[in-house]
Every structure is written in structure tokens, then in C-alpha cells.
């Protein structure tokens, strides 16, 4: 059951990453692994994420 949940979570993270979606859960996980509290709230994280998307190039 736990494995299934983890598998589903893995897929969710993968799809978010593939389509360039914000993934606050992954950010929190990163902060946990790095041993520091999250610097950004979910709203701040989403705002920063979308702002940075506007600077990237899309191909023709």
C-alpha cells in the first residue's frame, strides 16, 4: 500500500517536472533533505516559480 502511494507520488512529481509545473511538495522534501526550514511559503514559491517561467525561451 505504502509502495503504491510512493509510486503514485513519484509519477506526480515526474509529470510536474516534465511539464514544468510548480511542485511545492518536492521543494519541502528538498528542504528536509538539506536540513533547513523552507524559505518560501507555498504562495511565495508559486509566485517565484511562475515569475521565473516568463524569462525562458520557447523554441520556434
Amino acid at each position, binding site marked *: 500500500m505504502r509502495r503504491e502511494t510512493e509510486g503514485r507520488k513519484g509519477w506526480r512529481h515526474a509529470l510536474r517536472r516534465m511539464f514544468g*509545473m510548480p511542485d511545492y511538495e518536492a521543494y519541502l522534501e528538498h528542504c528536509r533533505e538539506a536540513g533547513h526550514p523552507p524559505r518560501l511559503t507555498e504562495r511565495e514559491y508559486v509566485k517565484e516559480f*511562475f515569475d521565473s517561467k*516568463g524569462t525562458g525561451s*520557447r523554441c*520556434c
Partner: protein
Amino acid sequence: MQPLASLLVWSGISLLGAAAFGVLALSRGETVNAAWLLTAAVCTYAVGYRFYSKFLADRVFGLDDRRATPAERCNNGRDFVPTNKWVLYGHHFAAIAGAGPLVGPVLAAQFGFLPGTLWLVIGVVLGGAVQDFVILFCSLRRDGKSLGQMAKEEVNPAAGATAMLAVLFIMIILLAVLALIVVNALKASPWGLFTIACTIPIALLMGWWMKRWRPGNVGEASAVGAVLLLGALVGGGWVAGQPHLAPLFTHGATALTWMMMGYGFIASVLPVWMLLCPRDYLSTFLKITTILVLAAAILVILPPLRMPALTPFASLGEGPVFAGKLFPFAFITIACGAISGFHSLVASGTTPKMIARESDARLIGYGGMLMESFVGVMAMIAACTLDPGVYFAMNTTPAALAQASQALGQAGFVVTPEAMQALAARMGETTLVARSGGAPSLAVGMAQIFAGATGALGGRTLDALWYHFAIMFEALFILTTIDTGTRVGRFMLQEIVGHVWPRFAETSWYPSVIASSALIVTGWGYFLYQGVVDPLGGINSLWPLFGISNQLLAAVALCVGTTILIKMGRGRYAWVTAAPLAWLVTVTMTAGWQKVFSADPRLGFLAHAASLAGSANPDAARLILNDRLNTFVALLFMTIVTVLIVTSLWEWWLVLSHRKTANVHEAPYVEAGYATGD
């Protein structure tokens, strides 16, 4: 795999590919099935990936999995994140795939299916995929630095400034030509315009959903957006049939030009989450789904190619779609499907910041570009399944059609007005004649393939729906490129002006935002307008300019790649980038020269201007001005790249003759965590 088994498998793949090429090259007069084209392409990609990309990865670049990537060293859980290579492959492909690989092959089909296909397949293996891979590798070793930054540090500051200027000018031409494709696809099409207009409120709703209501829930917002989009597609058919509603969404090319410019300006000024991001998600989902469905549909029905392998226009150079002979114009026209300079911006953008291991760059950089080429091959198939008469009638203005009528008649490429009218009615349009730009003919080809694959669901009764679905698919991601391109152009302009007026560089200072957005929109809007009012159709002048500029940007990228290889002490392998660079420079400079100085008024800008001098045409003065402006732009691109090549050659000579110490600006070596067991 055992060595003998591997040898047998790869020999078999190589022989199969060679046989498929043989069938394509030797068929004359008989119909060829698309299966041969697919087989030739897939076998070449497989051999290229297995052997050439491995050679590049191991011998030329020396990819080292013990070396930590920027994603590992700078991991911040946001833009620097180690990512599974297959996930990143999808992400990178979504960023590089645009309208170029779809439209270029459709236009190049005027030479027949063979030249374009050969260049798509061979060009990508030896040039396009190498360019993407080398720039990804270089950026990966430099903490994800951009192409301009690498040119500045590795070649010299003048090269960096030149590269940045080149990108800005190229962006303006790119946006103009893409906007022209959308305008030509939507003019006098209430169904198409209604559907595309609906994407704006849909995107605004999605933006509000994922930013304000349920922050970060892009999946939910996109699902709602996709359902609404399909509703808009079906609703468009209903609107087109309503005598009171249809005129509201029926506009000519000039009105659509102003709408496009207004849209581009607003999209550049609004916060990204409102319009740009949601539209980007919608178009990415639609793009990946449609490409997969198209590939499956082609494999299911394996359509016959009705266009011959070679048309008379390959040698005559008087093609009605665009002027010029096969060399150099087939290569300029195909552009993105074989080599795209714009990929170097993506390969030195987000992707290198997400690579978990250096060896992953092979699949993502080289493999991603192979997939882009495959999309180009599918577009070529879709265009070549059309009756050649229909293809030329759709992609040619009446004026150009009249000029080429004799050659078309001799080649047997004729179609009756009644047949064109029947086709338009089947696709839910009032007319499909002179819909140049490639998008409508690709949409008809795709509609026929989709309708063939879904015959049991209604077959040809769904033609109109599939046609407008294909138009929506193309227009949606072209508009996404216009959103992002205008914004990126705005940032670049703000940065350039910021050197003399620092306040202007503040990206959140509204006077600067508005002024720079207006300038960029005016820039591409001007070229769009002149394309719209051009009697020969703007594609004839704008697409070659776009192709030349895109390929010259690739030359800039290959210059930077070659410089870095030489500085890394791998000068003996510099041919891997120098050879495609030499080819690109030859092709683009020849094309640029012909576009400016050819004595044929259909081809040369100056000759066209001279032919109008003293003409009674009331638009003559404006057309002459446009020709002179196009001349200036073409010469500017050629000068910029010449400067960059000369400065690069000088740098290579200094390093190779030991007059200068090769100083590469790689990030310091740090051992990867997983390699040390951390």
C-alpha cells in the same frame, strides 16, 4: 548484448535503412508509401544515436558521471533540481518543439518529398543534434550559463554582445513570420478565430485558478482548460454556422494583424501567471498529445505519398510557394527540423540546470533533437499525402499561381476550382485557396490522416473538426511563442538600454515595461504587416529571412562550441562542430546573398525594388521601402555572423598556435555525491 548479436542487430538496422532510402530515391512516377520514409528516418536516427552520439559523449566531450552537475551542486529545489533523464527528455522536447519543424517541411515539399526528407534525417544526425548536444554539454559544465554569456567568456566580450544582438533581431523576424502563419490560417475563418479567441479567457481562468484559487494546482487548472478548449472547438463549428455570429469572427488579414499585435503587447505587459503560463501549459499538453496521436495515426494508416520525390521546382528555382533553387533554399526552409539555432537558447537555459548526471546529456541533447526531426518527417508526410494540385493551390497567392501556372500544368499539378471548393466545404471553410504559410495545408493533411485512422468513428464526417483541431493545435503554440518571445525580447531590450539608462533595465518599472514591449511589438508587427500586404504573400520574403536568421544563430552556437572544444584541448575533434558550421555558413551566406542580390525580382530584394521603380502600382513606394528594409536585415544578419566567425577564428588561431593560453571557464570539478556514496 553479446557482441555478435549486437553486430547482427545493428547491421540489420543499417541495411533496412539503406533499403528504405533506396526505395525512396529510385521511385519515379509511382506512388511511394509513407512507411518507407518512416523506416529510413527511424533507422538513421537509431544508428546515429547508437554510434555517433556515443562517440561524441565518450571521445569528444568526455562526459564524466563522477563529476557533479549544476543540478546537484546548486540544488535549490526549484530551478536547479536533479531530474530523471526521461522526465527531463520530455521537458526538453516540449521546450524545443514548436511550429518550425511542422511548417518548414510543409513549405519545402514544393521541391518534392525527397530533398526535404534527406536533409531532415541527415542534417539532424550530423548537425542539429550535435549543436544541441554540444551547447547542452558546454552549459552543463558552466552552471547553466546562457549562449551569450558563454560567447562572452569563451570567445570574447565583442562576440558576446554580437550574439545577444543577433538573438534580438532574429527574435523579431521569428515572431513576425510565426504571426503571419496564424494570420493566414485564421483569415476569413470564423470557426478558427472563435476557437483561438476562446483560448484567451480560458487561459485567464486557468491563471486565476492556479495562482489565486488553488495555488500551484496546474494539473486541475489544465484539465479544466482542456475541456473548455474542446468545447470551444466544437462551439466554433456552431458559431460559423450562425448568420448573426459568424461575421463577428470573420476578419481579413489586416484586421487580424492589429489583433495579433494588441495581443502580443498585452501578453508581454501582464504578469506571466495570468496569460503566458496557463497558455504555455495548455499548448504543451496539446502539442505532446497531438504529436503522439499523429505518429500513431500515420503508423496505423501508412498513407501513400502523392507528391513526387522531386518536382520541377527543385532545379527551376521558380517555385510558387517560395522562390529559389533547391540549393540553398531547401536547407533554409526546413530549418528547425534539421538544425535550429533557437535550440541553443533552450539547451543553455533551464535544461542544463536539471541534469542529474553528465551522461544524461546524450539522451536529452542529442536524442531530443532526433525526436524534433521525427516531427518534421511526420509534417512532410502529412503535406505529401495531399494532392500536389491542392498543395500548390493552398500555398500560393493568385499572383504567384498565375506566374507558375505553366510549370504546374506541365508537371500535372492541377486542381479545379470546384475540387478546391468541395475540399473547403468538407473542412468547414469558405475557401482554402491562397492559404499560404504551411499551417492550413498541414491541417488538411493531418485531418485526412486523423479521419483515415478514425474511419470507424465517422471518417470524413469528422474532417472539419479534425481540420480545426489541427489549426487550433498549431495556432495555440505559435501564440505561446509570440507571448514568450515578445517578453524575452522586451527583457533583452531593457537590458541593452539599461547600459546607458540603468532605470530602464528594471523589469518591474512600468514605463520601461510598456515602452520596451511596444518597441518589440512594433518591430515584429511591422514585418508582419508588410508580409500581409505583400502581393506575393509574405511567406516568400519572410520565411527565407527567418530561415537564414535561425541557421545563422545555429552558426553562432557552433562557433562557441568549436571554440570551447579547442580550448579544452580537443582540437582534433573540432571537426564535429566545425563541419556543420562550415556547411551552415555556406548555405546561409549563399541564400542571404541571393535574397539580396539575385537579378530575379521574385528572389532578390533589390531586383524586386528595381522592377517596381516607375511602376503605376500605388503601393510601389511602400514595397520598395520594404525591399530595402529586408535587404538591410539580411545584410545585418550576415555581418553579425561574419564578425562572430572572424573573432572565433582569431581566437582558435591564437590558442592552436600557443600564442594564448587556453583558459576555459568551466565550473570547478566537484565529485558527484552518489559517486562518493554521500
